[in-house]
Structures are given as C-alpha cells and as structure tokens.
C-alpha cells in the first residue's frame, strides 16, 4: 500500500468501527469490544507505518476535489509533515490505551456500546484534524470532536453535574468556534484557498492583508478547544465524565487540537507580533492561574484537569515564541504522562471509592491496594513536575529554552516581551506544578487513618495499560536527539540556565509542600472527613459516577473540601478560597453572560405567553362566542327558519325599493 492509502485508512478505520459499533451495538453485543478496540489498534499500527515511511522528510501532499463548491474550492487533502505523523501516532496510542482500559473500566455499563463507538468517532475526528491538508475538512473533524465531547462528558447523564458539564463544554467551545469559523473564512479570502500548503505559501510571500485580525479570530477558537484563558472553564467541569474520556480529551484529542492547529499554521500567527503577544499573555495567565487553582482542588481529577490547562499553557507559550517544535514535543510527552495520570486516577478512585483527596488522605495503605497505579502515577507525576530524566523535563525545558532565546531577542519575528512573559510565567508555573504534583502524591498515597477499603485486584487490562503508558512517560525524553529531524530542525536539548532554574524551582516546590504536609498532617486525625461510594464492589464506572455525585452533598462543593489538613490550604493562605473556585471566573461569567441571557429569555417568554398568545387566543375565542350566539337560533323548527327567511326577504325587498325610489 502506498503511504497515502495508509494515511487515508488511519482516520477511516476508527470511523468505520464507530459506525459498525453504533449499528451492531444492540443486535450483536459480542462484537462490541472487538469493534471498539481492533480498528483503533490497526489505525495506530498504520499511523506508525506512515510515520516511519514519512521519516520527517519532505511533506507528503495528496488532494482530490470531490465536487466544485463555488468560489474557493474545498478539497479532501492530506498534508503529512513530521508534526502530523507524530501527533497521529500519539493519538492512536492514547486512543488504543483508552479503548482497552474502557473494556475493564466500564465492564458492566449498559451504555458501553454507544460509549465505545463515540470514543472511536472522537479518535477518528482527531486523526482527521491531524492529517487534513484542507482547513474546511479540518473544521469538520474539529466540530465532530465538539459534539463527541458533549456526548462523552455527559455519559453519566443521570447526575446533574454531568448534564451541566456536557452542556457547558459544548457551549463554551462553540463560543470559540464562531470566531474561529470567521477566521478561517477571512484567511481563505486573503490567501485564496483553504489548502494549508497554499495558505502557508501566501503567508511566506506576504499575501495576507489582515494577519492580526485573522490570527486573533483563530485564537478564539483555539482558546475554546485547548481550554486557554478565558475559555478554559469547561475543562475542570468536564471531569464529570468517565475517567477514560478525560484521559482521551486531555491527552490526545480535543485540547491537543487547538495547539496542533496553531503549530500547523504558525507562520500565520508569527506574521502578526500583536497576536503573538496576546497568545503569550493568554498562555501566561492560563498556566499560572491554573497551577494555583490546581493546588486548591479536592477532586483528584480536577487537580489533573487544571494541570492539563497549565501544560497546554506551556505549549501555547512555546508557540507564542514561535517554536512549534518545542510545543509539539511537549504535546507528545504531555499526552503520554497525562493519559497515564488520568487512567491511574481512575484506578485509584475505584479502589478508594471516592474522588476526594481529603478522604484519601485519611486512608492508610491505599498505595499497597493499587501498586501498579502507585508506581506508574509516581512516574507520571515526576514527569509532570519536570524532574529529570522523565519525559516532562525534556519537553518543558525545550519550551523554557526557546522562551529564553526569544527573551534574549534571538527569535527573528518574535517580540522579546513575549519571550520574557513566557519565561517568567513558565518558571513560576514550574514551581507551582511541582507543588501540586507533590500535594496530590502525598495526599493520595501517604494517608494516615483507617485502613483503605479492599476491593480485590483491579482488572488486568486497566493495570497493563498503565505500564504501557509509563514507558514513554519515563523515556520519551531520550528521543530529543531524533525529534528535530521530524520537526523544523531546531535543537530541543535543554539549555543549562533554564534547566538548573526550572529543576531547582521544582525541587523547592516539592520540598516546601512536603514540609507543609508534615506540618498539617497531624491535623488530619482530628478532623474526620470522608464519604465513599455506596457500591464499592461495583464496576469502576459506577463507583466514579457515585463519587462525583456525592462530592457536593458530602463536602459542600464539587471542587472544594473543608479540610484543614490540606497542605495546599497552608501554602496558598487567603488565596485558597478563591483558587478552589477557579478565581470566581464562573461566577463572573454567570453575572456577565448567564444572567442577561436568562433575563432576555424570560422577557421573550413573557412576550410570547402574554402578548403573542393573547392575539392567538383572541382569534379563537371571538368566533367561538359568535358561534355560540348563532347556535341559539338553530332550534330545529323548519317553520321558524322560513319565517326568518320571509322576514329577511321582506326587509331586503323594502330596502331595494327604498334605494330604487331614492335613486329615482
């Protein structure tokens, strides 16, 4: 098979798997698991083959125009460069892991067939975005991901949290997608084509008339999809979905799409210095704010969600200083360790019967109940905190290194201010990241108190997947020598200054948290806390749904627990209260957008019910009254009718005579 055929099959196989899964889910339940796992696995194999054949050399382009569509043609195009093929491999690997993990995690779930099919569709849409060489085809995959995330986040739709979260995810990302669509149209109008190669050619020859406008419009869509400030609020709430879905959304699909999109069209963004500064500020606010918020969360998955937002901030930061190699490097390594973190968190939630860190910190020996999750999560948290030699260290240092270069004014088209913003906020975030990673690890695995509940061993498929993902989390950094061949050729090796600074800050963060934890842990015994799921022996998905549903009733809020033994509370001080609720951004949005919209809806309802419907009802009531009056004359006596007829004729005759005589 040619490389092009293979590349076409990569997004097509999961799509066919999804279609077959949806069709056969009820009639042939035995085929659901193979139909979910095999196409994704096969497409991963094909993605690896495509990556090997492409080999980081000249980009492979193929296009076919199905039908003429008017002014600017829309083509089914592939554009396989080093970035595309490597990201596709990441998507395939993570999606395969998630599918295999789900067969254990949602073993007894009645909606597993539709769930697996939607995961396949989600994967296929992301692969379409990755490989597509045409912006409109890319947009199709982009929007399919939006609707898939809506369905998957709302998988436990019996709980009100899941319903609200799925709607929020859909609406917030759509809020970004509208400007994104206009940005695409403006870009195509300026460049004269939707093909990425043509667009990049037009940018290179200076053919863009409104680069800042286009870049800012596109940034809105990217902020929505990649959960960047100010459109990030959907991501922490999306934790109401099943853990494998979170892993998929956070590691490989959806949030990666925004970063990947900028990486693909980076020359469009570097054409405008203003857009780069906006992107840098956005990334800086996102990463520091989310790291502070992560330190205050009580739900283990919400900690990870905020850490995803922060790591995405690193990627957009790298893009803001014009280096897509570092951004995609961090995307790849983050995809591996974040998928691992989420899948391990799913195992922990199942074993502990709760998603609350406060409750976990009051359980002894949780780590010996889930040894696989304990060791792999330790690896992934070290990678997240960027401790050498784990994967996260190399990719994060690559980002900080390019930021340092840009701050020194070595970047060609990049403003030095953007470099400084990213460098400073990146170092602050490195400190905070290590802090919340340490806090998560200490609270989850170093608890004191009652013995952790014993529910037997976790399913083998779930544990095996964790070890598969632990390998790249541990060793992916070693590929930094090879990766520049696939990327733009920029060197990705860490520079000495930023490495020492970043690692030092991370160590400081970890040690300070440890000290704070030693100080507060004595309090834990005094304040009993903790509620566990009602059915601890059930399927992991059921346990998780119950844990999410019971968090707000048990602790007062989905994100917050009144736990004085939390080291995050000591470290953040008065900030803790604000950080726990995401710095009141949701409340601000409620006041700014939700209330006015509700008021407008109330007004429209009033106008409809009280004004428009009055006319409609009047139009019905008046004839009815008239009819009632006329009906009284209908006595059934024929003679009465005739009498009235006669009287009418007499009156008419009289009138006719009168009129005739007057006329004469």
């Amino acid at each position, binding site marked *: 098979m040619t490389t092009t055929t293979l590349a076409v099959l990569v997004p097509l196989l999961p799509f066919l798997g999804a279609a077959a899964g949806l069709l056969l889910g009820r009639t042939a339940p035995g085929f659901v698991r193979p139909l979910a796992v095999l196409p994704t696995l096969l497409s991963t194999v094909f993605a690896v083959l495509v990556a090997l054949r492409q080999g980081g050399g000249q980009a492979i382009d193929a296009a076919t125009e199905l039908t003429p569509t008017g002014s600017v043609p829309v083509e089914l195009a592939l554009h396989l460069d080093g970035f595309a093929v490597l990201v596709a491999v990441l998507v395939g690997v993570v999606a395969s892991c998630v599918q295999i993990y789900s067969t254990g995690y949602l073993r007894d779930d009645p909606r597993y067939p539709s769930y697996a099919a939607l995961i396949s569709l989600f994967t296929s849409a992301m692969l379409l975005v990755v490989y597509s060489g045409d912006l409109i085809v890319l947009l199709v995959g982009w929007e399919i991901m939006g609707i898939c995330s809506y369905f998957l986040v709302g998988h436990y739709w019996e709980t009100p949290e899941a319903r609200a979260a799925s709607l929020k995810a859909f609406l917030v990302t759509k809020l970004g997608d509208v400007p994104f669509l206009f940005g695409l149209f403006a870009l195509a109008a300026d460049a004269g084509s939707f093909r990425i190669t043509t667009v990049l050619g037009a940018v290179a020859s200076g053919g863009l008339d409104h680069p800042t406008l286009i870049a800012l419009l596109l940034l809105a869509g990217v902020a929505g999809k990649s959960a960047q400030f100010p459109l990030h609020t959907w991501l922490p709430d999306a934790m109401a979905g099943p853990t494998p879905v979170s892993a998929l959304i956070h590691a490989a699909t959806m949030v990666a799409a925004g970063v990947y999109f900028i990486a693909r069209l980076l020359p469009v963004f570097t054409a405008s210095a203003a857009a780069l500064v906006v992107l840098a500020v956005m990334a800086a606010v996102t990463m520091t704010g989310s790291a502070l918020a992560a330190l205050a969360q009580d739900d283990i998955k919400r900690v990870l969600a905020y850490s995803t937002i922060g790591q995405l901030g690193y990627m957009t930061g790298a893009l803001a200083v014009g280096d897509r190699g570092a951004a995609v490097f961090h995307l790849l390594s983050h995809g591996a360790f974040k998928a691992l973190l989420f899948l391990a968190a799913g195992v922990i939630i199942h074993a502990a019967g709760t998603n609350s860190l406060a409750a976990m910190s009051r359980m002894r020996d949780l780590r010996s109940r889930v040894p696989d999750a304990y060791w792999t999560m330790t690896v992934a948290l070290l990678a997240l905190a960027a401790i050498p030699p784990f994967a996260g260290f190399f990719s994060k240092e690559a980002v900080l290194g390019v930021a340092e270069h840009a701050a020194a004014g070595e970047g060609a088209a990049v403003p030095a201010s953007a470099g400084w913003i990213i460098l400073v906020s990146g170092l602050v975030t490195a400190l905070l990241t290590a802090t919340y990673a340490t806090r998560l690890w200490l609270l989850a695995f170093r608890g004191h108190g009652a013995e952790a509940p014993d529910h037997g061993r976790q399913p083998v498929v779930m544990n095996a997947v964790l070890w598969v993902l632990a390998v790249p989390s541990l060793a992916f950094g070693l590929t930094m020598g090879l990766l520049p061949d696939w990327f733009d050729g920029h060197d990705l090796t860490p520079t000495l200054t930023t490495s020492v600074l970043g690692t030092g800050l991370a160590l400081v963060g970890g040690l300070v948290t440890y000290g704070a934890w030693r100080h507060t842990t004595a309090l834990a015994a005094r304040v009993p806390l903790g509620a566990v799921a009602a059915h601890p022996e059930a399927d992991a998905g059921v346990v998780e749904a119950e844990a999410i549903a019971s968090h707000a009733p048990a602790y007062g809020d989905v994100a917050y627990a009144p736990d004085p033994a939390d080291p995050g509370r000591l470290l953040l001080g008065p900030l803790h209260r604000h950080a726990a609720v995401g710095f009141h951004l949701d409340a601000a949005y409620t006041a700014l957008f939700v209330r006015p919209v509700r008021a407008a809806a109330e007004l429209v309802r009033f106008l409809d019910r009280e004004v428009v419907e009055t006319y409609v009802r009047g139009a019905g009531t008046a004839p009815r009254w008239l009819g009632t009056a006329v*009906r*009284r004359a*209908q*006595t*059934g*006596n*024929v*003679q009465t009718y*005739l*009498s009235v007829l*006669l009287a009418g004729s007499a009156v008419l005759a009289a009138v006719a005579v009168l009129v005739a005589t007057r006329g004469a």
Partner: protein
Amino acid sequence: MHLAYPAVLSVLLFCTGLYGVLARRNAILVLMSVELMLNAVNLNLVAFDVWLSRAARDALHSGQALTLFTIAIAAAEIGIGLAIVLAVYRARGTSDIDKLRDTAETRPGPGDDGTEPAAPAMAEKTEAAA
C-alpha cells in the same frame, strides 16, 4: 276583466298559503299550503299572460307555457312530499312538524329536550330503513 281582480285573488291565495306553511303543524296541511302558493303564482302567470298578449307585446304565451311547467313540477313535488310525510309518519308515528327537530343544535347538559328523543328516534329510523 280588470287585471286587479286576479291579482288580488292571487295575493290572497299566496298569503293564505304562506300562513299555512308558517303556522300549520300538520305536514300534509303544510304541503297543501305550498300548493296554494304555487297556484297563486300560476294564477298570476295566466292573468299577466292574457294582459300582455292583449297588448300584443307577447305573442308566444310564455306565461301559459310556464304555468304548464309549474303544474307538472307541482305534481311531482306533491308526490315526493307526500311520500316523505308517509315515511316520516311510519317511522315516528306522527307528522307534526314541531316534533321533527332532528336538525336542532344539541346543547350539552342534562334534562335537555333536544337530546332526549333523538336516540330512540334514530333507532326507529334505522328500523324503518331495514
């Protein structure tokens, strides 16, 4: 003979017929009153025909021809009418027009006169048709 005599006679006949149609209760008497009205019209037709032909404005005697038509139609009408009356009488046991109120608007509510006899009447009607 002056035209006034037959005209006045015709008016008297018509008014008698009209009174009968509007006031009598027996269906046969109503039919007879209809005949009276028709014949009043016939009288008018003949009288005016004579008057017009005398003035030589109408040589075709269309009034008389129309009268013949009216008589024929009246014969057919009275045949059908009497047959209907007979059928109604057989079905209902009465030919009182005041009691034939099937077309009345039935009012909802108990103790209503319009609905009460309707159901047995319907049953009788279907019996007669069978």
